[in-house]
């Protein structure tokens, strides 16, 4: 295969002067040699501070009860579930970039897949905190598990929450394995290049005796293909299950058949945004411009735009459905979204998820990384607001007007959200210094293919 695909004028997916050796030197060096630096240190300090706040919040929550949040009757779900859906959706984009691109053999995937896979694992792990902590009695979360016991109690299989529990579990496990399998050759590289014996031991153990034999490569390739093949349907299943958590309810605004595809679109949308939000600063922080090229950023931005348009279509379909169906409660719910006390949430969602992403139609914008970063941040915010809107505006005013009631968050609601961001960042920053942020072996392959230099 040539450096540039025949018949297209696309820029190369890797800088022309990169060789397999330079890839290893550069990417491996981030882990093995690069000093921590004030930027990493200060970022990690902030993340740790937020994580500490989350830990304090969790302790207080366990001591006092979920009443420390602003939830009430009728709005019995709010920030915690919003945060959960938001985080798990962020993982989706990562898996999709990595697995679907792998299955479809997209060459530019090599530079972003590690970043996306690790993001997935951490986002799903962080998201898992919320469904457990939002329980009134979190210490009994394992009751969702069908374990044998004397009283023959069993989970309730009609509840989407039960299926959601399984979906998250499966997804988290597959994501971890997927990430790990891809890491193995790189771990071996680190093992071989580690300066200290301790590091060599640790990486060596993790590398599972990888020697780079053709047999190893073949097995890894087929394992990756299988896992990728497994991950893609899981992306759809897990987010469909998240959607069914709501569609199963009969509330206006929840009870909707379009939710599963709608949620998948939203998940991809925010997932791509998160890839961009991570990749753009990482690229600068670790000097990865040679691998994460303008083309990568522009490609993900295009994907984000595409997913965004799919989301926007869902918005339109939902509103159309309400007024076409003329169900009294659906219409009232939509009118509340437009004009009610939470209208600012709706309109902000429209600005962030519908209007601003239209800028990405312009190549100039796509090539301006600051602009893309800002837009992606806006999408993340917009998608959080969208989930908040879906949850709260359906709950606060449902069937009996006598029971309508507002939700006001407490500082703890905000603290848990900020703390979860802190935890995610802390995990990610740690990862960036302990494991290669880009897939060295895939980049070597690209360098070899495109620049034709022997490893």
């Amino acid at each position: 295969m040539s450096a540039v695909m025949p018949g297209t004028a696309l820029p190369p997916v890797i800088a022309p002067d990169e060789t397999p050796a330079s890839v290893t030197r550069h990417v491996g060096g981030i882990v093995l040699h690069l000093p921590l630096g004030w930027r990493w240190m200060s970022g990690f300090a902030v993340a740790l501070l937020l994580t500490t706040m989350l830990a304090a919040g969790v302790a207080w929550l366990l001591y006092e009860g979920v009443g420390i949040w602003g939830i009430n009757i009728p709005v019995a779900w709010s920030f915690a579930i919003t945060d959960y859906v938001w985080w798990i959706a962020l993982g989706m984009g990562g898996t999709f970039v990595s697995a679907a691109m792998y299955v479809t053999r997209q060459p530019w995937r090599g530079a972003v897949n590690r970043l996306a896979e690790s993001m997935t694992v951490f986002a799903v792990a962080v998201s898992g905190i919320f469904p457990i902590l939002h329980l009134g009695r979190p210490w009994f979360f394992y009751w969702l598990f069908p374990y044998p016991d004397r009283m023959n109690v069993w989970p309730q299989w009609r509840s989407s929450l039960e299926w959601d529990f399984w979906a998250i579990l499966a997804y988290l496990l597959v994501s971890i394995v997927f990430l790990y399998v891809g890491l193995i050759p790189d771990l071996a590289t680190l093992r071989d290049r580690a300066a200290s014996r301790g590091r060599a031991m640790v990486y060596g153990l993790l590398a599972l005796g990888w020697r780079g034999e053709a047999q190893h490569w073949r097995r890894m390739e087929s394992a990756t293909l299988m896992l990728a093949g497994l991950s893609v349907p899981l992306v759809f299943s897990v987010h469909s299950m998240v959607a069914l958590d709501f569609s199963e309810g009969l509330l206006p605004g929840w009870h909707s058949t379009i939710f599963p595809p709608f949620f998948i679109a939203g998940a991809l949308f925010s997932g791509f945004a998160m890839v961009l939000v991570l990749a753009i600063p990482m690229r600068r922080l670790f000097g990865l411009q040679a691998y994460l090229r303008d083309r990568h950023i522009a490609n993900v931005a295009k994907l984000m735009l595409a997913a965004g348009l799919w989301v926007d279509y869902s918005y339109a379909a939902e509103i159309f459905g309400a007024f076409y169906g003329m169900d009294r409660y659906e219409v009232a719910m939509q009118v509340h979204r437009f004009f009610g006390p939470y209208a600012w949430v709706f309109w902000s969602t429209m600005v962030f998820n519908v209007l601003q992403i239209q800028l990405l139609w312009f190549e100039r914008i796509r090539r301006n990384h600051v602009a893309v970063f800002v837009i992606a941040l806006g999408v993340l915010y917009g998608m959080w607001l969208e989930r908040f809107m879906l949850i709260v505006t359906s709950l606060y005013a449902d069937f009996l007007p006598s029971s309508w009631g507002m939700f006001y968050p407490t500082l703890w609601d905000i603290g848990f959200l900020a703390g979860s961001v802190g935890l995610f960042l802390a995990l990610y920053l740690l990862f960036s210094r302990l494991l290669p942020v880009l897939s060295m072996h895939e980049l070597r392959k690209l360098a070899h293919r495109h620049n034709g230099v022997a490893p």
Partner: protein
Amino acid sequence: MSPLDRLAQQVAEAARTVAPQRPPTFDAGAARRRLAAARGPVFWRSLEELSDDEGFRHWLRRQQPQLAETLAMDRRGFLKLLGASMALAGLAACSRPPQGEIVPFVQGQPGEAGGLPRFFATALPRHGYAQGVLVENHSGRPTKVEGNPRHPASLGATDIYAQAAILQLWDPDRSQAVMHGGTVATWDGFQAALLATAGRMRGNGGAGLRVLTGTVTSPTLSAQLDALLRRFPAARWHVHEPAGNVSGALGTTTRLHLERARVVLALDADFLLDPAAGVRYTRDFVATRSPERTGKNMSRLYAIEPTPSVTGGMADHHLALESYRLQAFARALAGRLGAGGDVAAAGAMEAVSARWLDALVQDLQAHRGASLVVVGTTQPAWMHALGHAMNQALGNVGHTVEYLDTVEKSPAPGGTLADLAAAMHAGTVDTLLALDANPVYDAPADLGFAAALRKVPHLLHLGLYRDETGRRAEWHVPQAHALESWGDARAFDGTASILQPLIAPLYDGRSAHEVLAALLGDEVRDTRALVRRQWQEALSDDADWAAALQAGFIEHTAAATRTTPRFATASELEAAADANAGNDDAQALELLFRPDPTIDDGRWANNGWLQELPKPLSKLTWDNAALVSPSLAGQRQLANGDMVALELDGRRLEVPVWIMPGQAARSVTLHLGYGRHAAGHVGDGQGFDAYLLRTSAAPWNASGLRLRKTGERYPLAGTQHHFDMEGRDLLRVGTLDDYLRDPAFATAGDRFPEPPPSLYPDRPRGEYAWAMSIDLGSCIGCGACTVACQAENNIPVVGKDQVRRGREMHWIRVDRYFEGGADDPRSYPQPVPCMMCEHAPCEVVCPVGATVHDSEGLNLQVYNRCVGTRFCSNNCPYKVRRFNFLQYADQASAALQAQRNPEVSVRRRGVMEKCTYCIQRIEGAHIEADKAGRRIRDGEVVTACQAVCPAQAIHFGDLNDPHSGVAQAKASSRNYAMLNELGTRPRTTYLARVRNPNPALGDEPA
């Protein structure tokens, strides 16, 4: 408060100062224009939304709810409730059987198993008047009050106060020791002080001795007071009932026969909540409101009142008139009816009033002998005389109204609180004995009572609490609760009851009888012996005594009826009326004082159940507020929660306002009973003290009020925020004509006459199918069901802060919807318990199966299994589920543990709970039926809400039995299921309300 909370609060305060909120202003003009433009029945929401002006829209858009209230969790109020009672550990062990033999309502079998509840009949006095009750007793602990079906004031139902009496009994804040000044003393010490008092008085015939009580109907106490006045002829007895009946002061008690009335006019009369007879009157009234039974002879109620009441809410026609305009109207009406009054006044009427006058005269006269004019207790004596004259002229006396010689004991002239205060100021009072009275708090402000007390050397106080008066007293003695003490009292119709104790006094409390016996030097000191001696003649036989105890009242003790009331003379009447006539300045505001709908005159302020019970019309809890009319709010730019300064006769009080639909334009209502500072942990510091503005000259309706907005805001805690039905058919109402034309009018417009099809079986095939029917035509919205349920099911009190956060725990709530314009809308209550859906949306979404269906159709909540996902609540379209967001149930105080129903689990933090149809009662009936090898009989299971309901609006039973009460109720053509279109197939259904408007007045809401 924890440091974290403090930090959170500081940040929240900072956030508030950074983002100041502009409160929405309510434009009454705009609202009216919008309403005028609207077509069809207009239901509306909170007033700000009704107004729908651009400013409000703008505010809504700008408002970030996120920032509006990042309040730190105020755990103080909550902890106050919890820790109300730490001092009482081990108290349960102190309860013991009462002294003297008491007699259960139904005699238990010899050798009966322990642990089963037993019922004892007794009576609970309210404002001195007895309400017959049956008290459930678990192993010596009274836990629940039910009405006494045979007692004339109860007929099996009770009001909210009888329900809350249990919590009052077990209230850890009750006075627990005799106090001499600030130190703990003994009963013997107090008796010595009484002996010294008697010694001082012996020389001067008791000059300087004053006794103050509330209303007295107790024959024993009456006799003791008589003996006291005989022994000390110069002593004086004063009566002070802060929210009492003034008509009794005329020497005549009016006895209404609402069951015989076809047309009723209530002039500022809330007879359905009458303290003495409200429960009975409610039963009598709703008997005339069931179209199945009455057909076209359904009664019609007109209500004219300055401030909306529960009775006004039941009216077919409601007119909001300021007190002075109401009185002018009454005079004009009396004139037209040929009952004195002022014929000329009719000419000066406004158009609406004139239309009403014509319609009323016509309707009342068309039903001579079957009509009834009721004048409220808050109206002056001359208005009552006018009412009597109208009834006389309409030939109603002896039919719909009777007179009784007053049941209350009346003091000699000069026996008012004002007379007492004057004597105290004059320095002629040596010893004041206050028996169950709290004048330091609830005396009118103009009497300067607290100041006058400084001139009284000896204040002796007997009270349930060491309240404001108890703290000023030389001697304070804890009073035995009515459930702890022997006694007697009369009901509104004179029927006497013996009060028997259910438990020995928890804190060595004493009765008023004991105190007076000690003062009199009576050789009999024991309360039971005193009561027994009083009834020696009537109940000479021990068997009669036992029968009276068992029945809960004494046969043939009702007062004799008469057809002529003893009135003020006609000339006095005219003079009073004329003196009043000048007082109709259209620009002035009037201030109305009313007893609070839940904590009454303040004596229930420390009762968490009543504090948290939403007020029937405003749905506010834990506070009183100045109720203002929408038009006044529009004029003065007032929003709910704005602080205003009320000035009356130079006295000033700052209170928050609440915009009350149906309030007369120029009337401002302030409820009594709040703003206490020595009520206890629960009641202290809640609300605002209306007594500071009240005068003895105008105890109910005072003119010359000045109201000014201060710019401050005050947080009020309501349980309902939207009173508009949004055009949904949740609460269905039709007129009598609608009903007669199509008895099934309620379901005629249903889009889905049958619930949508389902794959699940329609109904489980159990032996029983429990179900409930609620008659909206009968429900008056008093809230007794809510308190009864709270008592029966160990429902915790959560406090104002948690109510503000939308976390109240009531299993059955009473919603209220308004229809029509804000100035004078119709209002409808709707009790909402669990609907026990056949296809319950809550069940399918629980991941652990903590809420399941049983074979008898009950939707069960398994607390032990619940992990607290709260999906069930989200998915409940009726929003009847309640969640323990925090540890609400007090697990620390022994007294409150002793109060609980042992048959109902106390729920812990983190679990969901909801109405169970009183499953413990169903199971009890199951056990009894199984033992006897028979089916459960209809009426054997009575839910707490059903039992307490004065209107008998709730039917419960087995649908599999076609003859059961509930099956018959559901067979009514008025039966409908709320939100039927969702396919939930609720077991709780409603009977549509039927109104009976007068065609002559038109049927558009004002």
